[in-house]
């Protein structure tokens, strides 16, 4: 019987205690952040959308290699040594220090639909070219829109650069072949003279 | 109890069926047990009051070419000592006696090892796939596993 009454008392009492707490909370400061109007503060180092600073990228491919989900795909093209444009890569953005570019980055695609925001790519990048931004509002209706193309080169320039490189390589090859032929010729000549002697 | 002493106790009891292998740190020393003796060894390990391995930390299937293996990590809560057992079986007849009746935790571990490596735990009451779908073919964690192209009309590699 004592248990019976205690049960009843406990039931009523604990309910009242709970009700007091919820009542108190009715008048407390609310914590809701009204999202599109006000924003929850995002720290500067937050990992959100990836951004490539194409000027700084030298096309070393280490970000694509470290990415655990293979969301970065890079294609590069060797810069022709006597390229009239004389391309440069921004080595030190603070001091505006540029170095001659060795590789054209013809394709630098990041599939943000695949990205797992692990920030491994940003740490391995030797020139801090790829970085996380604080922009997280980039949802889109189509998956294709999440494939970001970061290179500034148009397909035409890529083709022309490729052509230039091929020409250069052909020229080099021809020069090499010519040199080799010349060398062979000389060798033959030398051999001939030697045998004649 | 020291690892060496545990090894001594075991070799005394089981003779040639167990082979202690001491490895340099940080790898833990382990005992190689013949596959068909694993149940007896485990039962002894659990029920001997000096050893008293009452807690099975982990049961892992491994594929160290060419053999499949099972690694048992045991722990004694009372004596605070650990031991690693290993057993290897040929990939053609991967039969290992179940230790499910010794440690109930082995139940799901063994199902997982069956699921991933196809190690057949003899005497397990319900040896079915646990993580893969029930009708999955092949044993994914074997080193020679080839990912199928399709599963029920769905492309597997995305």
């Amino acid at each position, binding site marked *: 019987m004592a248990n019976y009454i205690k*049960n*009843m008392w406990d039931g*009523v009492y604990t*309910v009242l205690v*709970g*009700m007091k*707490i*919820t*009542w108190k*909370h*009715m*008048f*407390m*400061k*609310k*914590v*809701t952040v*009204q999202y599109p109007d006000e924003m929850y503060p995002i720290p500067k180092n937050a990992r959100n959308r990836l951004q490539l600073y194409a000027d700084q990228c030298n096309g070393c491919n280490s970000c694509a290699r470290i990415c655990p989900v293979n969301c970065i795909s890079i294609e590069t093209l060797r810069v022709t040594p006597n390229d009239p444009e004389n391309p440069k890569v921004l080595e030190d953005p603070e001091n505006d220090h540029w170095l001659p570019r060795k590789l054209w980055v013809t394709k630098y695609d990041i599939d943000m639909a695949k990205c797992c925001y692990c920030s491994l790519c940003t740490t391995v990048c030797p020139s801090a070219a790829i970085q996380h931004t604080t922009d997280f509002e980039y949802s889109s209706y189509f998956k294709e829109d999440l494939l970001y193309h970061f290179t500034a080169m148009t397909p035409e320039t890529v083709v022309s650069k490729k052509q230039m490189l091929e020409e250069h390589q052909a020229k080099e090859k021809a020069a090499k072949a010519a040199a080799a032929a010349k060398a062979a010729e000389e060798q033959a000549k030398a051999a001939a003279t030697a045998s004649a002697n | 109890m020291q690892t060496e002493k545990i090894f001594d106790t075991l070799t005394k009891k089981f003779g040639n069926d167990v082979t202690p292998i001491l490895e340099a740190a940080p790898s833990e020393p382990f005992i190689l047990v013949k596959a068909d003796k694993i149940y007896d060894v485990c039962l002894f390990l659990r029920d001997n009051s000096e050893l008293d391995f009452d807690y099975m930390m982990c049961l892992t299937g491994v594929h160290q070419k060419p053999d499949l293996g099972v690694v048992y990590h045991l722990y004694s809560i009372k004596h605070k000592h650990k031991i690693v057992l290993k057993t290897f079986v040929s990939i053609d007849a991967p039969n290992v006696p179940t230790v499910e009746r010794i440690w109930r935790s082995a139940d799901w571990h063994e199902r997982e090892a069956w699921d991933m490596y196809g190690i057949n735990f003899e005497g397990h009451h319900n040896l079915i796939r646990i993580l893969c779908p029930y009708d999955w073919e092949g044993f994914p964690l074997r080193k020679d596993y080839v990912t199928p192209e399709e599963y029920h009309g769905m492309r597997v590699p995305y």
Partner: protein
Amino acid sequence: METNIFIQLLGNNWIAYTAIAVLPLGFLLLYALVAILAELKVSAWMQDRLGPMRTGPWGILQPLAEVVKLLQKEDITPDLANKVLYNLAPYMMFTGAYAAVAVIPFSQQFVPSNINLGLFYIFAVSAIATIGVVMGGWASNNKYSLLGAMRSVAQIISYEIPAAMAILATAVLASSLNLNEINTVQDGGIFNWFIFGGPGPWFKVFVLPFTFGLCLIYMIASLAETNRTPFDIPEGESELVAGYHTEYGGMKFAMFFLGEYVNMFIVSAIMATIFFGGWQSPFGSSIMSGPVWGLFWFLAKVGTVVFFQIWLRWTLPRLRVDQLMDLGWKYLLPMSFICFFAIALWKMLI
């Protein structure tokens, strides 16, 4: 019938009767919207949230938006459901709830149907809602729905008895089953309400614990009858997904929802009527009383009780089904008998 304001105004013709019939319906729909908003907002405030803020100023149009959303949804009938019963069940539930409104005295002058068996009638028709629940649960051909329906029946049947005992005690105090009559008896200020033992000499303090107890019992039982937390096991979402209305969507779900809120109103109205003096002013019949004030007091009292229900809902966890039965049969029922006995005794003495 003389007290009904519409018949006084429009005469005893069909227009008056239509008005009498339609007015509560419109009122109930409006009430349901307000109650849903209250539920959303109160729950939000209790949980340190703001609640809906986007639809209209402070989100006051949120319930309307939800109704529109529900109306737009596709009307789905599961293939293996019993079509007739499945489609009928939500309306059954609402009908039961709505029929009970017929005898609620909104104000001294406006009682849709001032019958002498008011309390009895309410008990009779509010059981129809149970049939709707069972119909829906069974016809859905879903195991969760079936479990929910079975639970609901067990629950409502067990809790009707303590609720009836509580109500009967006030019928004894008022010597009437007519709800308007019960209200009239509680005339003369807050201390003449039945929660304070009704009109009587000073030594009615001895009966106060029992009337308080009965009020509490009725409160608990009414929560159970309306399937609200902590007694929402027929639709306990953590175990039965949504209980008897798992398979319902769109308009039919809206009917269930409406039925639930109307039921809330009914039990609150009964509570206000029989324990808190209904349309009586708390300051006696001379101050702030009259037909319009009566309506105001009635609605204020109902609103308070509804708020109380919402408050409890967002405070308490849910009971288990056997504990629910325990509470109903082992605690509420004996207690309600004791209180009823005490009140009957007191009534005999004075």
